[in-house]
């Protein structure tokens, strides 16, 4: 090693190192300054979001009670699988995991995530409602591998009575993309549960409540360390219905397995007391998770279990319509109480024979007799005199062929034929012969059981209250409010007399008679095919076209408090299948309303108006 080596140049060049060190540390310092001083707010916010999750606390929907305050719809808890998108770094892997282990449909998951993209990244996406216990245990066991997945406890609907009043109460389901566009569902987010049908849908806004939220401190594995800052959810409003649970149960029981509908209402107040449609469905299945095969079964059933026949089923009124034809005759001055006709079992009109159901004929009948015996010939002649214009105009005054405006969605209008209607739909003029079949409630006359019940209610009381299901809602949907018809009391009394005799005299409605309750009513039998077609098809095929059976009545005769309408599809005759069902409902009503002193009281009045 050389001694006294010249190292001055080396020492001079150490200067380069000083420069480089200054630059390097200076660069780091300035970057540090940029991040922790200039960008502090941004990173502070990012850190917050990293460590804190905002988890929605969906509000429990309001309870739905019957008129005595008994819960028809309650809440329990379910567990939903949610995805925290801002933590889902490897979405494909998460989807693989869920597809493989929970057998969830990948496309559906992807669609849900896509739909959620229009909302803030920090709102978790509900991937699956109502997890099974096995799935939940599995997820909890794998939480640390998938911190981006969470389990969210949320209220779930429970319908303690299962299929009872299912169409009326409706069901809930996850809000759809279309519904989210609708301002009525404006406050909802994907994954929310909303009413899809029935009361649940019609009153969704009041039932839904307002969801709250919770902030949760989580570690990088998604483990909850601390729960903070809860905005509690505001529970939905409680709804008191006009339905009387016991009467509802009795009506369900009375209709049994027959496809058809029963509706009971208070003709003075417009309150619906019971409403049954059969076949039905279990709304609990929708509240949990409806499996595709369950859905398939519901929609492929030829008896349409999802249809609420009370407001959506359209049927010809059959002989029930005779009540209104009779009333029209009196009101419009075409007939008097003494106007009579002679029934020989059939009559020739416009060159065609029109038959009465009683081939032997009823002989000479006046209006009250004609109603009691449901004499076709009398009403053929009366209808002919009234003409189609008067008939259709009078039917509308009774609210037929138009929605009742009840507080349910999906109500259909039905049809009352008129000259204009026929001209518009077929291009042909109205033939006078068609009026004859309309006069006995056949032909292109279509009404819902609820419309028919209301019309009979008008006959029973002369009043036109707004029909409603939720107490305190008499004033809803005023555009459907019928004007008070102002019928002559004597005319109404005559029709009621005929109806009383149907049940209590030698009439077709004897099946509806109840000991201790003055029931009045009318049966109807609606041919679904003409007699000629029936003959052509042969009895075997024609069995599928067995007539629908009607009974609509009210009680007590002198101070009507309840109207009951029953239709049994393919039930045969009204007297055999529909009247006894109505009788059961009247009997149940009597037992419920009969006070201790044997006095018939109003059904328990609403305790409070909500």
């Amino acid at each position, binding site marked *: 090693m050389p001694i006294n080596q010249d190292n001055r140049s080396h020492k001079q060049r150490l200067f380069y190192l000083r420069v480089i060190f200054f630059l390097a540390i200076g660069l780091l310092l300035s970057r540090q300054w940029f*991040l*922790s001083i200039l960008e502090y707010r941004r*990173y502070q916010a990012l850190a917050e979001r990293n460590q804190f999750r905002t988890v929605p606390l969906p509000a429990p929907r309001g309870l739905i009670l019957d008129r005595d305050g008994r819960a028809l719809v309650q809440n329990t808890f379910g567990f939903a699988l949610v995805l925290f998108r801002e933590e889902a770094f490897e979405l494909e892997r998460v989807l693989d995991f869920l597809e493989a282990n929970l057998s969830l449909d990948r496309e559906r998951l992807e669609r849900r995530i896509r739909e959620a993209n229009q909302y803030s990244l920090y709102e978790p996406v509900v991937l699956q409602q109502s997890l099974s216990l096995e799935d939940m245990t599995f997820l909890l066991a794998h939480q640390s591998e998938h911190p981006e997945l969470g389990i969210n406890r949320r209220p779930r609907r429970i319908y303690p009575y299962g299929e009872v009043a299912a169409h009326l109460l409706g069901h809930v389901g996850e809000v759809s993309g279309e519904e989210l566009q609708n301002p009525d569902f404006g406050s909802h987010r994907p994954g929310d549960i909303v009413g899809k049908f029935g009361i649940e849908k019609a009153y969704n806004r009041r039932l839904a409540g307002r969801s709250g939220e919770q902030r949760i401190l989580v570690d990088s594995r998604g483990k909850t360390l601390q729960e903070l800052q809860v905005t509690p959810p505001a529970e939905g409003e409680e709804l008191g219905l006009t339905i009387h649970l016991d009467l509802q149960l009795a009506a369900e029981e009375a209709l049994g397995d027959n496809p058809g509908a029963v509706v009971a209402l208070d003709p003075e107040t417009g309150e619906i007391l019971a409403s049954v449609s059969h076949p039905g469905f279990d709304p609990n299945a929708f509240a949990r998770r409806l499996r595709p095969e369950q859905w398939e079964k519901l929609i492929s059933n030829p008896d349409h279990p999802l249809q609420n026949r009370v407001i959506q089923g359209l049927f010809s009124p059959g002989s029930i319509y005779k009540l209104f034809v009779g009333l029209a005759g009196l009101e419009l001055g075409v007939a008097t109480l003494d106007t009579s006709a002679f029934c020989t079992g059939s009559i020739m009109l416009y060159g065609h024979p029109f038959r009465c159901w009683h081939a032997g004929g009823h002989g000479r009948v006046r209006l009250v007799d004609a109603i009691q015996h449901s004499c076709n010939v009398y009403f053929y002649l009366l209808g002919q005199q009234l003409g189609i214009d008067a008939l259709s105009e009078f039917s509308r005054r009774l609210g037929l062929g138009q929605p009742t405006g009840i507080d349910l969605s999906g109500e259909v209008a039905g049809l009352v034929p008129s000259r204009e209607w026929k001209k518009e739909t077929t291009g042909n003029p109205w033939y006078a012969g068609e009026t004859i079949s309309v006069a006995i409630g056949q032909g292109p006359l279509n009404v819902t059981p609820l419309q028919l019940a209301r019309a009979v209610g008008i006959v029973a009381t002369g009043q036109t209250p707004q029909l409603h299901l939720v107490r305190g809602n008499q004033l809803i949907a005023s555009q459907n409010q019928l004007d008070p018809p102002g019928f002559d009391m004597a005319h109404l009394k005559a029709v009621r007399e005929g109806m009383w005799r149907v049940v209590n005299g030698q009439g077709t409605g004897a099946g509806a008679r109840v000991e201790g309750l003055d029931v009045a009513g009318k049966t109807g039998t609606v041919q679904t095919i003409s007699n000629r077609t029936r003959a052509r098809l042969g009895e075997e095929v024609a069995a599928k076209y067995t007539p629908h059976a009607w009974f609509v009545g009210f009680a007590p005769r002198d101070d009507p408090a309840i109207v009951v309408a029953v239709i049994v599809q393919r039930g045969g005759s009204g007297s055999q299948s529909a009247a006894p069902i109505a009788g059961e409902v009247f009997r149940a009503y009597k037992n419920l309303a009969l006070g201790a002193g044997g006095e018939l009281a109003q059904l328990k009045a609403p305790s409070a108006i909500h």
Partner: protein
Amino acid sequence: MLHRAWFRQFDYLLFAGALCLCAIGLVGIYSATIHGADSALFVRQAIWIGAGVFLAFLVMAIDYRFLTDHALLFYGLTMLLLVAVLIFGREINGSKSWIRFGSFGIQPSEPAKIVVILTLASYLSQLNDNYLRRKDVAALAGLTLLPVILITMQGDLGTALTFLPILVGTMLVAGLRLKFLIFVLVVILCVAPLGWLTLKDYQKQRILVTLNPDLDPNGVGYQTRQSLIAIGSGGLMGKGLGNGLQSQLGFVPEIHSDFIFALLAEELGFLGAAAILSLYLAGLLRMVGIGDRANDRAGILIVTGVASLVCFHVFVNVGMTLGIMPAIGIPLPLLSYGGSSTLAMFMALGLVLNVHSRRFVYSEASV
């Protein structure tokens, strides 16, 4: 060998600065592991530091000229050790750079840095020119690249890269003519695309993501993103020790080793981070000052090599946590948890102190 004068010539300030960094590192490691099961790491690091101090004194006790005189011997032994690692080494985290002795493991690549510093200084101290000739550049490059290649073969690219600043720093001080500098840059530019091809996919992705963090904010960029959030959210004063939720809740990986700076910056804020960086800068400048007063070229070049190495470690590691360097896993000197790197840093420190304490020896002898 150890005279009393030697203690008078001991650079207490540099040593104290180093211990200061160690203490900050221990606090950081402690904070990083309070909630974890690994609280033993803190104690182990303290033991490593103790061993490091001992090693530094050991290195200091032997005259550095003795060390440079025998540098080629050390070099040969180290290269054999590196080859042995390739054959017998244990694979940890995808790289085969460890040899285990019982429960303790050692990475020969760490002391290899010290040996390369000594070897380059030794080679250059035998020259008398003020500038490097072509064959000198070639020789220095060759001496450096051999361990680089061996360590790259172990799969530890990050550590391999840390040899390059030793070469560059040493050549710079030894007198690299502009034309050679340009030549070296051109060679690097030409080799870089070839080197790119030899990189593994994950290594390429790391580099790409650093250049453009938004390329993959959730996958590979995750660590960097989380580290930035930790540092940025620290603000001016920091969240306080133990309160850096971002670090404490496990969002930043390798928080006690490679990313300890992120934790310190989150919990101590800009002020703490600036203090740490200033401490490094002061230490680096102090080392350069020792070089300035060194007695011979070997002394100057040893200090140069050590300072370049430390600066590179600091820049790449902190740069990585700050998102301006690729996520190459190299430790932050004296702060990061790790036995081999702590021992190697203390050895390097021992070399510098060695040079400092013997700066008057020749002048005394010549009097």
